[in-house]
């Protein structure tokens, strides 16, 4: 490794530890949220350094962007006296055992990692690539070899949306908004670009870094920006169309997973000649659903707002 790279990595790791510390020990919640967002951004850089651009894309869009927007929106809805409230500080005395425990845990993890077989499952994935139906190993793992895991991830997201929506109505209507003419102008410019990038990443997922999760996150970023700029869910979209969009990814996944059994296959074992098309369908449906689900999480409840226009 080049010395400059080693220096960069060391600085990156150090900043991440400092930011993580600040996130937990910040003077107030706002600082904690900002530290968390910066931590997400640096985590994305760390994934780039580990040559995992797929995860870096998803982390940058989700960890730094959308989670930050969610946390800031939540902060904005807290009562002012709680928003600025000092976070409870851990007593100085209790820190030492935790530090020791953390160090011991890190050492154990390191030992376990070093003891693992070095290339991991990489070889097996690469040897199975001819039957995968896509050229990108990451997409092959996510949507073919380990599609079951991805199916469950999407199911968990949908459950989260259902849980949040069952708590009450959307909270956007009650938030105060700043008169800021520049934001809608920015959204008008960025929204089409973000939708275009969503489809670019969906298409690119077949042969390079990209795929359903980063694409969905970008779509959600566009939709959340539009919501922040004052757009509301159009009335004809609420109800059935919105629910269909939310469930589309999971539905497509399950239908295909069960459907391939009709050809005499096993649950989720795509027949190789149909694999590219089936994966493309799942990828597009999952990407769009992830985008809508993330936006639904931001809405904080089923949209009931009847006034206001759309984008």
């Amino acid at each position: 490794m080049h010395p400059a790279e080693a220096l960069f990595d060391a600085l990156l790791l150090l900043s991440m530890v400092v930011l993580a510390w600040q996130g937990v020990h910040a003077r107030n919640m706002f600082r904690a949220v900002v530290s968390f967002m910066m931590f997400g951004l640096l985590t994305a850089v760390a994934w780039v350094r580990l040559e995992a651009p797929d995860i870096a894309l998803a982390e940058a869009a989700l960890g730094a962007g959308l989670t930050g927007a969610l946390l800031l929106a939540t902060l904005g809805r807290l009562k002012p006296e709680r928003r600025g409230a000092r976070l409870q500080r851990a007593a100085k005395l209790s820190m030492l055992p935790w530090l020791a425990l953390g160090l011991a845990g890190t050492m154990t993890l390191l030992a376990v990692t070093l003891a693992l077989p070095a290339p991991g499952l990489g070889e097996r994935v690469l040897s199975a690539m001819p039957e995968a139906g896509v050229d990108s190993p990451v997409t092959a793992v996510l949507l073919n070899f380990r599609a079951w895991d991805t199916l469950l991830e999407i199911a968990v997201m949908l459950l989260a949306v259902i849980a949040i929506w069952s708590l009450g109505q959307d909270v956007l209507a009650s938030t105060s908004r700043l008169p800021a003419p520049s934001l809608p102008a920015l959204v008008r410019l960025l929204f089409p670009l973000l939708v275009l990038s969503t489809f670019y990443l969906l298409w690119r997922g077949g042969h390079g870094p990209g795929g359903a999760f980063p694409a969905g996150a970008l779509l959600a970023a566009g939709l959340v920006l539009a919501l922040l700029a004052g757009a509301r869910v159009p009335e004809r979209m609420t109800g059935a169309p919105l629910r269909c969009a939310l469930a589309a990814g999971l539905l497509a996944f399950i239908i295909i997973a069960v459907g391939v059994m009709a050809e005499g296959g096993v649950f989720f074992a795509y027949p190789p000649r149909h694999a590219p098309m089936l994966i493309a369908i799942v990828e597009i449906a999952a990407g769009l659903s992830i985008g809508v689900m993330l936006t639904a999480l931001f809405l904080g409840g089923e949209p009931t707002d009847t006034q206001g226009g759309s984008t």
Partner: protein
Amino acid sequence: MSTIAGAILIVLGLLFFLSGTLGLLRFPDVFTRLHALSKADTLALGLVCAGLALHADDGTLQLKLLLIWLLVIVSGATCSSLIARAALAHGIRPWQR
């Protein structure tokens, strides 16, 4: 030749980043800090992107660098305006000598 010019542009950009950060740390209130940060950083990023474009041997890459700069200009300007408006709305008065 273009490699040296590119390196000079990048170093120049880093100097602007440094001055913007100095302004963020040293200026008295949110408005003056925004003023220092947004302008210096936008120019700095432009210089770094131009320097990297001189190093790139691929037209697509240069186009992407230009696109990055343009997007950051637009979003940076909007963010600065939003932060300044939020600060005004929260009753923060601009600093006066």
